[in-house]
């Protein structure tokens, strides 16, 4: 049986009277890409902060690498994970290379790792540019390079592609898949359903501090599908058909008459499922 890198049981977090997390439980296996999906304020970042010892939970248990999450601030454990959050910062007066060099020294890595990290985020040519001259998307890529530079077995990525254009986002997806193939476990939070579907082995829908559903994207789509198809005819008419003799005969008739232009499954998107579960969208 594969070991759980992260194990969370009945996690509860209160800020004053406000309950940010309500009995959240989940586990993440080694080598998995796990997506935490939810709108702003649903508790995604709070969960990451608890798992990286930046916050202490009010109740419940959280284990990372089979150790209590509160121990994640030890030097040995800090070397085993990388974290990218929306409040990760860079030194504005230093160049990209100088920023990465600092972390190279802090993690005691060879300088050649800077080159690899820059290639990962497609910024080799801009290495001498000062951070203050970079766009938000480029800064996000530098932070990502810094996060993965020490090749940690566990990555916490909080909205990693939120500021990126589609081309660079795709570049990052490819890089993350490569890292995952090498064994890196990734805990990813995102609003982006396409991103979650593309990358994640399993996803959890988080809403108002509660996990509403947790499974693989395929299983969730299957579970929430009404098993209908849309048949588009040559004349532009669209018909929704369901399993059953009557609809099957109708489709066969259209096909015999060569009237079918295209046919597709009406399986829900992850966004549709989220709306169905929570009554609100992911924005």
């Amino acid at each position, binding site marked *: 049986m594969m070991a759980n890198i992260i194990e969370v049981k009945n996690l509860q977090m209160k800020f004053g009277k406000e309950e940010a997390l309500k009995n959240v439980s989940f586990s993440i296996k080694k080598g998995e890409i796990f997506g935490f999906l939810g709108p702003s304020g649903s508790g995604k970042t709070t969960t990451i*902060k608890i798992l*990286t*010892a*930046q*916050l*202490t939970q009010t109740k419940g248990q959280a284990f990372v690498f089979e150790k209590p999450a509160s121990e994640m*601030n030890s*030097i040995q454990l*800090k*070397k085993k994970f990388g*974290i990218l959050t929306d*409040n*990760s*910062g*860079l*030194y*504005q*007066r*230093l160049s990209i290379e*100088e920023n990465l*060099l*600092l*972390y190279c*020294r*802090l*993690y*005691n890595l060879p300088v050649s790792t800077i080159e690899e990290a820059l290639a990962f985020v497609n910024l080799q040519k801009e290495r001498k540019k000062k951070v203050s001259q970079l766009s938000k998307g480029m800064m996000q890529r530098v932070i990502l390079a*810094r996060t993965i530079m020490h090749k940690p077995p566990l990555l916490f990525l909080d909205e990693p592609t939120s500021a990126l254009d589609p081309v660079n986002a795709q570049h990052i997806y490819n890089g993350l898949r490569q890292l995952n193939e090498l064994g890196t476990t990734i805990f990813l939070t995102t609003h982006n359903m396409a991103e979650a579907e593309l990358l994640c082995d399993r996803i959890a829908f988080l809403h108002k501090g509660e996990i509403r559903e947790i499974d693989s994207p395929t299983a969730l789509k299957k579970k929430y599908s009404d098993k209908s198809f849309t048949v588009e005819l040559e004349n532009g008419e669209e018909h929704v058909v369901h399993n059953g003799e009557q609809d099957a005969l109708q489709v066969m008739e259209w096909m015999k008459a060569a009237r079918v232009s295209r046919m597709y499954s009406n399986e829900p998107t992850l966004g549709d499922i989220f709306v169905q579960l929570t009554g609100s969208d992911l924005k």
Partner: protein
Amino acid sequence: MNMSMKRIQAIFVKDYKEFSRNYAVSSVIFMPMILALFYGRINSPSMDIYLFPINMTFSMVTAYIQACLIAEEKERNTLRGLMMSPASTVDILLGKSLLVFLTTTVILAVSSYLVGYTPNDMLTISIALAISAVFYLALGTICGLFTKSIMEASLAVLPVMVIFTFGPLAVHLVESKILGKVVEWLPSTQLLRIAELSQTGANLSELISSFIIITIWTIAAVVISIILFKKRTKDE
């Protein structure tokens, strides 16, 4: 204690590069030297005059720059990155203090030369200045950790400047006995006492009480800065 010279050096080098490109903050180092140049023109100055640029260096260079460096790390969210890296609290605090300590040493030497101060007992004064420098570094760290931006830190350091720089001068001016007593216990006043007594050839037993007072201030400030820093590693 987790301490790595490599990590301390990495933070020091980074701070040096940032500091040398931050003209708004780095230009402050010239203020005590300009003041020392001006005070050095006074005929037969007292020890108060000699020590004024020195205390000014401590508050304007040591405490102010340290507070700004820490506050900027907080403002730009880079302190969190350091805290999440393998650098320990000691690595970060030492790494971030080293640059300001070295800068302070150079400015103190230049200011003393410009004001015309030549200590009779160089070793005693050097030890007193080194302990004081650590105190002001810790004070600057506390101000930086308490504030959220460079702007706030600049304001937070103002009372430090007023109390510790002008404190020794106020000893002769304040009428209130209680206030006078408080001012007497300030590390800057004790530094002045050490400078005055050592200049007249006083022995260690006469100076020990002043050293103890400065050391207590320093230990208290260092402990508070470490506790505060550890609290900041938590996002609560």
